[in-house]
């Protein structure tokens, strides 16, 4: 309520914002306000592919991903709502020897961290996905404990649990100013009220840089459109998420039966989230090459959402070095949903203990200025 002093104000009610709210309550911080200028899941969360993979090439990313998978596995029970998390695997395709070499190196790292990914031959890949065209395929990696969840259900489950545990959630309320003083963050003003707080958590997705600007900070992240589509539901044809960095494609059949697929295409930075014909055309070509049986499957809807990109395609996490009390959980560059549980929980830990958890220490907001980029070889 206006005039009340909050322990923390979270800007953004996507999966990250609602999860940070929930994990703050788990640490005994309950006077928390979650604000969104739209509604729960109206931004990137409600538009994402919702795959959850652990096959990364950096130890930090593997650990964040594995921690998230372990949390996802218990999340339906913990939050009291089914989030449709399924560990149906990820199959990552490789079309040349250099890529296979890189994947071998990544697998060694993943296995050393307890991620059960393995290299498979094209024939084995076709056993896992019987409808896969293996023409040109040199090898693939498969990890059975990767999977996917329903992004709407996950977001609503976090929101409901956060509110149940004491958070307030205000939708259709826009942040207009973030007040600071010598001690740091002081208050958040919106189009409906003003709320005193010493802690703000920026979980504003594509609008993260604008929220940073309200606090006088320049955040190195920008929105970039990515397009995706969904087909009518179909009998189960294959289990894993199929991804190819060569085709810039991912395709998954979800619990509901629909195929959801996205394709990376060159985009200019900006808030454009219109649907383009060139996408559905490129997708029709790419997906029917890899999975020819889908030629007869009908597309229901195509849409677009915003990745929030940073110069190294890694998120910006933790307290901002220049403004005490201003925390970021932004810039996930297209893989925010899959590491939401771990990053939100570590963000709550950072706020509760006033420290920076070791795992996310390299992801501070000023690394770009210093030139300490965190470069991950395995991104779409």
């Amino acid at each position: 309520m206006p005039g009340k002093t909050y322990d923390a104000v979270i800007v953004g009610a996507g999966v990250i914002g609602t999860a940070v709210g929930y994990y703050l309550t788990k640490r005994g911080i309950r006077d928390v306000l979650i604000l969104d200028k739209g509604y729960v899941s109206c931004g990137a969360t409600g538009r994402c592919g919702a795959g959850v993979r652990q096959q990364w090439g950096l130890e930090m990313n593997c650990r964040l991903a594995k921690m998230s998978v372990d949390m996802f596995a218990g999340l339906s029970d913990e939050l009291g709502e089914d989030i449709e998390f399924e560990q149906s695997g990820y199959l990552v395709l490789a079309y040349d020897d250099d890529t296979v070499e890189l994947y071998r190196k990544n697998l060694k790292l993943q296995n050393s961290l307890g991620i059960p990914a393995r290299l498979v031959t094209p024939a084995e890949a076709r056993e896992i996905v019987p409808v896969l065209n293996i023409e040109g395929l040199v090898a693939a990696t498969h990890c059975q404990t990767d999977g996917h969840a329903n992004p709407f259900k996950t977001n609503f489950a976090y929101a409901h649990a956060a509110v149940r545990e004491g958070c307030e959630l205000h939708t259709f309320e826009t942040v207009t100013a973030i007040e600071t003083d010598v001690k740091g963050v002081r208050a958040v003003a919106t189009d409906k009220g003003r709320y005193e707080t010493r802690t703000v958590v920026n979980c504003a997705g594509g609008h993260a840089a604008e929220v940073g600007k309200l606090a006088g900070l320049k955040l190195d992240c920008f929105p970039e459109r990515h397009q995706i589509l969904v087909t009518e539901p179909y009998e189960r044809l294959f289990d894993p998420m199929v991804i190819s960095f060569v085709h810039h494609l991912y395709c998954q059949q979800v619990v509901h039966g629909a195929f959801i697929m996205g394709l990376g295409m060159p985009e200019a930075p900006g808030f454009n989230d219109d649907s383009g014909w060139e996408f559905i055309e490129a997708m029709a070509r790419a997906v029917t090459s890899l999975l020819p049986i889908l030629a007869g499957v009908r597309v229901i809807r195509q849409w677009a959402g915003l990745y929030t990109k940073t110069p190294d395609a890694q998120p910006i996490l933790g307290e901002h070095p220049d403004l005490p009390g201003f925390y970021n959980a932004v810039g996930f560059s297209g893989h925010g949903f899959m590491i939401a549980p771990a990053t939100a929980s570590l963000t709550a830990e950072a706020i509760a203990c006033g420290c920076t958890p070791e795992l996310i220490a390299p992801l501070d907001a000023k690394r770009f200025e210093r030139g300490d980029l965190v470069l991950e070889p395995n991104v779409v």
Partner: protein
Amino acid sequence: MTEDDSTIICRCEDITLGEIKQAVARGYATVDEIKHYLRAGMGPCQGRTCGHLVAQVVARETGRPVAEVWPMRARPPYHLVPFSTILAETGGTVAFPKVGD
């Protein structure tokens, strides 16, 4: 006439009148929120059949005009369309994209 809460409003996703009323009671007060929360309007009809019904229920339950609760965003394609049709229409082939493209 009494209202039957088991009446199916969204036929693609089997969402009933009762479920929509419960969602509104829970605070989901626009057609878009009902869609994200319940999947009403996410099926093959894309809200063309159920959208106005959902909007009327939400408007009635919240006491707001329909126009305020129903700014649903339309997206292509206009009708369900198989990938094979898109390929045929655009002169595309199913040739395997070259590695490195």
